[in-house]
């Protein structure tokens, strides 16, 4: 029976300098789901994203996208297969304006070759504006991205990923570095865009309220292993999880 799992990580093992960052990790994300990965700081959750996007090769285990083995492919190849990534520290083309960042990403989607046509065409500009409006950055379109406040830099980082029209979006701590006041507006904007486009999302997150509010399912990561998984309610009522991750005795 074929499963609707869009992403499946099987038995991942990875070590860095003698420390086991992933010790037999199994994760699957089904089409249309929002899946969160939570866990203590420094437990290597970003490593999971690094493996899924090809930045790090696991010592053993595999990652499959729509049933196709993508273990060992480069970040570039995986991006071309419809997986986009947003970063914990926003990765922008900081000397360019907000709209230029998005237009470049839009052009990249089609392989960056567009003959002698310019990057800045009315059609592309319109597309970029649409996306910026969707994510709430329309007013800042002409600002140089290095001058943006942190929350907006995060939004732009995610907008660049969305410009690729991915099937699967991987978000690395989308609300980290964002003030408590801005957290929910940011997530509302992102999740709105994601839902509207039918994108599946896997996000590593620290803020339990955000997880409780937006995640369909949660994986709890601890010491390189998946400690528990299930709906947010299941997981947050799990005694072990409460103790080691959430910090409630």
């Amino acid at each position, binding site marked *: 029976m074929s499963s609707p799992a869009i992403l499946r990580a099987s038995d991942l093992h990875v070590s860095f300098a003698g420390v086991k960052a992933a010790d037999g990790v199994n994760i699957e994300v089904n089409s249309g789901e929002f899946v969160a990965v939570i866990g203590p700081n420094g437990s290597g959750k970003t490593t999971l994203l690094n493996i899924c996007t090809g930045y790090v090769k696991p010592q053993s285990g595999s990652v499959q996208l729509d049933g196709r083995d993508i273990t060992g492919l*480069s970040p570039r190849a995986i991006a071309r297969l419809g997986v986009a990534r947003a970063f914990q520290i926003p990765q*922008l*083309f900081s000397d360019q304006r907000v709209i230029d960042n998005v237009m470049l990403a839009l052009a*990249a*989607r089609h*392989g960056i070759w567009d003959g002698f046509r310019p990057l800045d065409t009315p059609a592309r500009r319109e597309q970029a504006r649409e996306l910026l409006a969707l994510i709430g950055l329309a007013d800042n379109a002409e600002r140089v991205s290095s001058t943006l406040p942190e929350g907006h830099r995060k939004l732009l980082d995610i907008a660049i990923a969305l410009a690729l029209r991915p099937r699967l979006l991987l978000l690395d701590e989308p609300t980290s570095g964002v003030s408590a006041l801005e957290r929910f507006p940011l997530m509302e904007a992102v999740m709105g865009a994601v839902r509207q486009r039918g994108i599946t999302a896997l996000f590593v997150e620290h803020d339990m309220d955000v997880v409780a509010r937006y995640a369909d399912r949660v994986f709890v990561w601890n010491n390189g292993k998946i400690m528990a998984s299930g709906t947010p309610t299941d997981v947050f009522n799990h005694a072990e999880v409460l103790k080691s991750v959430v910090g409630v005795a």
Partner: protein
Amino acid sequence: MRYKLAALALFALAALPVAVPWLQFVLTIAIAKGFAALGVAVLLRAGLISIGHAMFFAASAYGVAFLSRAGINDLGAMLLLAVLFAALMGLLVGAFLVRYRAIFFAMLNLAISMVFYALCAKLYGITGGTDGMGISIPTIFGMTPAESTFKSILFYLALALMVIVGLALQLYLDSPLGRALSAVHTNEIRLEYLGVSVWSVLLIAYMISAALAGLGGVIAGFAVGRVVPDFAFWTASGHLVLIAVLGGIGGVAGAFIGAVFLELLHSMAVTVTDAWNLIVGVALIVVIMFLPSGFYGLLKRQKAPSL
């Protein structure tokens, strides 16, 4: 307004040799070097400094000399083939080189250009050694013009090419491929995560820059009537870098303005002193010290952010 200014400048440039005949040679060489400096400037956009680009300049000039020996004497054909030769060389050299950045890239370019120079100087049987090879007047549509006529045709052809190639290059720089160049410099990793092959983007840029330098070399070869190994010497690359840095703020036009300025300066300086390299070196340092920070953000930029 800008277009009127450009048209005026162009007209002045075209009319100058009529008023001051000996300037025609200087200006032809200036345009030739302008093309080569433009090549350097293209790579500069991606944060890559080539201090060995004179080798492509020399390679295409040698190409013209060899073509002439092989019996191909038509100007159009020689131009096309020699530039293609430079582009091909750019492809071969660039495929290896664009894996590197910053100082490694710069030094590898320098090293390869020095090897090229050494080979040109040593292989007397093939390249004529330090004497170089002569480049005779080509045929144009089957006819061989007189020397002075040809030199004038060459000058106006160079002017025309400057406009045509300049415009085409601007199209490239405004296209996604061209805009990706500065993106490589700012955040190469993000570009890879967007599915873009940074190696391909840079290789294409390298080939274009080699072809531009090659175009300059063909014009210079015909203007001088001879090609010598010195065309590829590292100090020649240095002059190109200075022009690129000087004119950099001004984009495509800037390279040619810088080239004309420097070549005029050179022809005047040569009458007073022979320490031209010294002047170029000092000028390079001074220009960098006083350059406004907006120059492609290149000089202010720190290392790309890490994940």
